[in-house]
């Protein structure tokens, strides 16, 4: 079987694509990659289909043996990757031979690395997606994180990619003293006091250790409510900022619940969710308020940039 064999799963490595959509009304959240930008770039660099599934590694990367040759790319966090003991850069295409070992280590710039293989990974689609749902134990490889001994086949390895020199770009720098994350206020903002909202937008918040793919828990000035934060449960959106009674914000991420009973102050804008996905425990965030129009225009710019990258690569093919 041509594919990969996991020698060490690292801290949390899962198979993800863009996510499982269409069943939120029965309670199935989308899951999918946390950092959609790095995901798209990885597939673009390899000339893969836009939604080809790949590995998402968290904080401590996996060690992977190639059981067949193939081209691959690493985007997102820098985990000090070594191919057969030799350090390799991210954001460019590398070819691994059969028997080659790729080792990712601790993340030193960002927290999530994306390891994509030309032609994609052969795992069954569950409800239209290859994404791993850890909480619901479905999708990806048996609904769980990857462990030593797991084997995954390539769908159709692409061994000869042309113009390798053009299939690269400058990695992003995620080493920031403070992260600026833009937020759109939501229709439940009136559950909170003016001081609470003011604190949210003017003081820094720290990402706590027990943050995960489901939600980022924040420490900082409490966002005080007027009377209560209990609402009649309603739907959540990606990046929704829930405030429980203790006033400590929780940002809902890829593995979020589809509905929730805490009032929502607003939501992180779609264009900034990939960036937030690269912030980890201990990092400080400052929130900036923007309008829905500004948020949508930022998303438009992000998508344009990506299209530009795809064109730059494909023009030469």
């Amino acid at each position, binding site marked *: 079987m041509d594919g990969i064999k996991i020698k060490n799963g690292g801290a949390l490595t899962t198979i993800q694509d863009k996510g499982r959509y269409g069943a939120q*009304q*029965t309670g199935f959240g989308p899951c999918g990659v946390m950092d959609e930008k790095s995901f798209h770039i990885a597939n673009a660099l390899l000339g893969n289909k836009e939604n080809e599934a790949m590995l998402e590694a968290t904080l401590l990367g996996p060690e992977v043996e190639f059981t067949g040759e193939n081209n691959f790319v690493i985007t997102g966090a820098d985990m000090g990757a070594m191919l057969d003991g030799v350090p390799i850069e991210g954001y460019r295409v590398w070819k691994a031979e059969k028997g080659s070992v790729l080792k990712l280590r601790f993340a030193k710039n960002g927290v999530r690395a994306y390891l994509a293989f030309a032609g994609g990974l052969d795992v069954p689609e569950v409800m239209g997606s290859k994404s791993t749902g850890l909480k619901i134990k479905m999708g990806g490889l048996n609904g769980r994180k990857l462990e030593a001994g797991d084997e995954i086949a390539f769908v159709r390895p692409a061994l000869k990619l042309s113009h390798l020199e053009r299939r690269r770009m400058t990695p992003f720098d995620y080493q920031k003293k403070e992260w600026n994350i833009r937020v759109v206020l*939501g229709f439940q903002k009136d559950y909170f006091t003016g001081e609470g909202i003011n604190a949210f937008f003017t003081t820094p918040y720290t990402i706590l250790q027990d943050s995960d793919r489901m939600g980022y828990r924040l420490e900082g000035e409490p966002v005080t409510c007027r009377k209560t934060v*209990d609402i009649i449960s*309603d739907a959540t959106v990606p990046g929704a900022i829930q405030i429980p*009674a203790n006033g400590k914000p929780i940002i809902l991420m890829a593995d979020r619940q589809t*509905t929730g*009973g805490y009032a929502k102050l607003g939501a992180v804008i*779609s264009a900034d969710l990939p960036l937030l996905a690269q912030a980890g425990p201990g990092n400080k965030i400052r929130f900036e308020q923007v309008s829905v129009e500004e948020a*949508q225009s930022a998303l438009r710019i992000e998508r344009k940039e990506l299209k530009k990258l795809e064109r730059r690569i494909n023009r030469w093919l």
Partner: protein
Amino acid sequence: MEEISILTAGDSAVTIEFADKISPDINRKVAAFAKALVRENIRGVLEYVPTFRSVTVFYDPLIVSYGKLCRSLQRIMENLEVTSAEKKRIYTIPVCYEEPFAPDMHTVMAHTGLDRESIIKLHSGRDYLIYMLGFLPGFPYLGGMDERLETPRLASPRTKIEAGSVGIGGSQTGIYPLDSPGGWQLIGKTPVRIYDERRKDPIFYRAGDYIRFVPIGEEKYREIRKQCDTGTYRCEVTES
């Protein structure tokens, strides 16, 4: 329909809120709106989540503009037809309200001023309408809990609640179908596997069905649990 509002929920979703209360009448409007939304098939609308008293519509702002989407949704509301309820399907769910399955029973007792027996009697004494599924696959938000049982959620949610736990959150009650973080006050646990991937239909009930809780002792809990493990247990279903 003038009380209905279209609200922005982030940059890629809007919420249509029919009222700020739980009532079967409001919920029927939600169902009717959802049905019309599917029929209308608006370009750029990705999916929707119906809840107690609102529908959240997810869209791609680069395909359909906010203004155009709102006009389409407005049109749906103007032509909304609400149908009356059809026949009731009731699922019987056994629940053990005893320790160690009821870690927050004392909180609920203290808050409501009721004793354990009264709480069990009030909680299991009626049929609950499944207003919506959400939060987790198959998590039923149940309407119609006795007001005397109302207890606020935990100030700081638990990081793990076991599958099958039955709880109270404000004026609502429900079951956790999977292990999950959560903020509800736990007063019991069912041995039934609400979510079971071995079944053809991993979630056996739907929004619009009813649930009836039946109190069981710890011994009965273990007995039913065994049957659930081997896949031989079926919840009792009655139609009326």
